[in-house]
């Protein structure tokens, strides 16, 4: 799982948002729950205090404070129900105070006296020794005899706190599990949603200038993905058209140039053979004819390239020994190398069978060797090696030439590209030789690479599929 993948990031976002929402919800729930529980506890205490005020305190004048205490004990049994009840007269005299509760959660005697303010009713949270605080509701009640009592009814907050802690603990335990499940589900869902994108991307990667007639799979989902794949297909279609147009243009242009070149060449040749011509005009005519020859060569090569583009690379398909063909070709070029005092050597330990257009593949060898010889200074060396490696036929041409700069290396197979601009006046080069090599190689399902160290030399390596073993 790559950290940068869309799937991973979407899942991460999804999990984060989900966690935030669930955590928010839980917080809201917990706080509300606590509020609600406390409120209802208050209400109960207040109700009880009113009850005591109405039923008992109202009659205290008649019954006496001692009877009041007994009645409260009898009716409410505060010790058993862990309740705190205290009745205080307005002059501060405590008429009744409940005993210690059964669970000993607080000491009633330690509860500080309530403020003797004239408010009728109030409540407070009173911390007492022990763990829990007391929730105390206080109600002021008057008697017909003119006395006034403060009735305090309290209950320990411990059960609410315990419940609250339990809920928190439960949520803390469940949340990660829920988030983990949601994230896993999200990951699977995002994966399914992105699956068509993967397929489109995989196919799009395979499409190059050689198979522009192919199209991406259409995600028939009726959504954005379908629109995306349709839009991409339309774009490939337009690219295809543009490519076809440019190919057709090259083919047409090289075709249209042929007739004027024929006329130029013919007329100039006729002039050049005129006996009465002086040496100076003859020189000029010669120079013109050389340019015509150069133009012709460019036109021929452009035409050859457009034919290769059109997929006519394998006019014939024969099985032959690449090693034998390449070494024989090198031998034929030996004089060319010798002429420039370059040591040309070749090596092919075993026959290497390939299948394809022999003449075209020979052109590959000729172009590579010619190039190597051309760009290697005198007394240098050029080496050809043909061998089989795994399932490929490998042909390498090494030279000790001027080399190619690293930034130029990726472009050496481009049409009309020249690594060394100073050399662009070379009469032979139309800057198409290596482009033709590349086209022929790709047409044979092979590839050609260039490696170079400036000042040390270059290596061109052609790799072609091996033919099946010799049937004979």
């Amino acid at each position, binding site marked *: 799982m790559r950290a940068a993948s869309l799937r991973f990031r979407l899942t991460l976002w999804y999990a984060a948002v989900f966690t935030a929402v669930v955590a928010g919800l839980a917080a809201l729930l917990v706080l509300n729950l606590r509020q609600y529980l406390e409120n209802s506890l208050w209400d109960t205490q207040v109700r009880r205090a009113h009850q005591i005020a109405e039923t008992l305190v109202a009659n205290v004048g008649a019954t006496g404070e001692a009877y009041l205490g007994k009645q409260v004990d009898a009716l409410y049994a505060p010790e058993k129900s862990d309740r705190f009840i205290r009745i205080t007269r307005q002059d501060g005299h405590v008429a009744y105070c409940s005993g210690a509760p059964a669970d000993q959660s607080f000491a009633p005697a330690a509860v500080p006296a309530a403020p003797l303010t004239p408010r009728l009713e109030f409540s407070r949270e009173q911390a007492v020794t022990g763990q829990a605080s007391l929730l105390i509701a206080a109600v002021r009640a008057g008697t017909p005899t003119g006395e006034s009592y403060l009735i305090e009814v309290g209950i320990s907050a411990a059960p609410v706190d315990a419940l609250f802690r339990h809920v928190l603990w439960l949520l803390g335990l469940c949340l990660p599990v829920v988030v983990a499940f949601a994230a896993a589900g999200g990951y699977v869902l995002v994966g399914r949603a992105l699956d068509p994108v993967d397929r489109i991307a995989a196919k799009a990667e395979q499409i190059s200038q050689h198979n522009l007639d192919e199209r991406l799979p259409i995600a028939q989902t009726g959504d954005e993905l379908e629109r995306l794949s349709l839009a991409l297909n339309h774009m490939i279609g337009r690219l295809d058209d543009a490519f076809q147009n440019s190919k057709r243009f090259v083919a047409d242009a090289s*075709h249209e140039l*042929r*007739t004027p*070149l*024929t*006329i*130029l*060449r*013919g*007329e*100039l*040749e*006729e002039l*050049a*053979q005129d*006996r009465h011509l002086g040496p100076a005009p*003859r*020189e000029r*005519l*010669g*120079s*013109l*004819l*050389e340019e*015509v*020859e150069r133009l*012709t*060569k460019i*036109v*021929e*090569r452009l*035409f050859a390239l457009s*034919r290769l583009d059109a997929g*006519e690379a394998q*006019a014939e398909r024969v099985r032959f020994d690449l090693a034998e063909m390449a070494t024989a*070709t090198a031998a*034929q*070029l030996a*004089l*060319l190398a010798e*002429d420039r005092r370059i040591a040309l050597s070749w090596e092919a330990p075993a026959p290497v069978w390939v299948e394809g257009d*022999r*003449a*075209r*593949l*020979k*052109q590959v*060898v*000729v172009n590579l060797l*010619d190039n190597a010889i051309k760009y290697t200074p005198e007394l240098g060396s050029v080496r050809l090696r043909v061998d089989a490696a795994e399932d490929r036929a490998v042909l390498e041409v090494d030279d000790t030439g001027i080399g190619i700069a690293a930034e130029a290396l990726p472009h050496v197979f481009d049409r009309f590209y020249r690594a060394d601009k100073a050399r662009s006046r070379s009469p*032979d080069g139309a800057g198409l*030789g290596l482009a033709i090599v590349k086209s022929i190689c790709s047409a044979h399902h092979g590839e050609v690479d260039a490696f170079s160290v400036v000042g040390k030399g270059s290596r061109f390596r052609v790799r072609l599929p091996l033919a099946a073993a010799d049937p004979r």
Partner: protein
Amino acid sequence: MRILIVEDERKVAELVARGLRAERYAVDVAETGDAGWAMISTYDYDLLILDLMLPGIDGLELVRRTRRRNAGIPILVLTARDATQSKVENFEAGADDYLTKPFAFAELQVRVKALLRRGPVARNSTVRVADLELDRLTQQVRRGGRRIALTAKEYALLEYLAIQPGRVYSRSMIVEHVWDQGFEGLTNIVDVYVRHLREKLDAPFPVKLIHTVRGVGYFLAEEAPP
């Protein structure tokens, strides 16, 4: 010998006609397929040279019709297409040979001559140019009675030039003939071989036999350029 040229590019037609007339052929020119067909139907020609892309009846159709009418007449096709496909089409339609534009006139001359002499050409086993002597059977070369040792390629090059002394051969003609298709465009190899050949053949002798016509090519003859 009467030759018909069917070519809609007037300049190309004139150029070819002029060159062939200089070689003492009688030459007619038709500029459309229909005109060409009318002339073929009217006169007897010894050779037909035609372009493939013609207004009216197109070149291939003209070849087919001509073949139906006269199976024996040699046909040379001039074409601006050189796709292998059309090469096959040409021969299937009945053309005897074809030349891709732009061509060297020298090459046209060679082809025309070859087509007009169709059938077994009398091949002398010995070729002589001035004091140069080539034995085509043993591939031995002597000049002034002295034996000159040549490599196979040097011999092939010399023989090609010597068969028609005085005729200028372009470098691409020489590459195609002496080497093969794979060497297409590698004309500098011709210069190297010619230089080696000169060292062996001309350097030791006062009279030079191999001559250069700059921009055109090479020829073998006793005298200076034509």
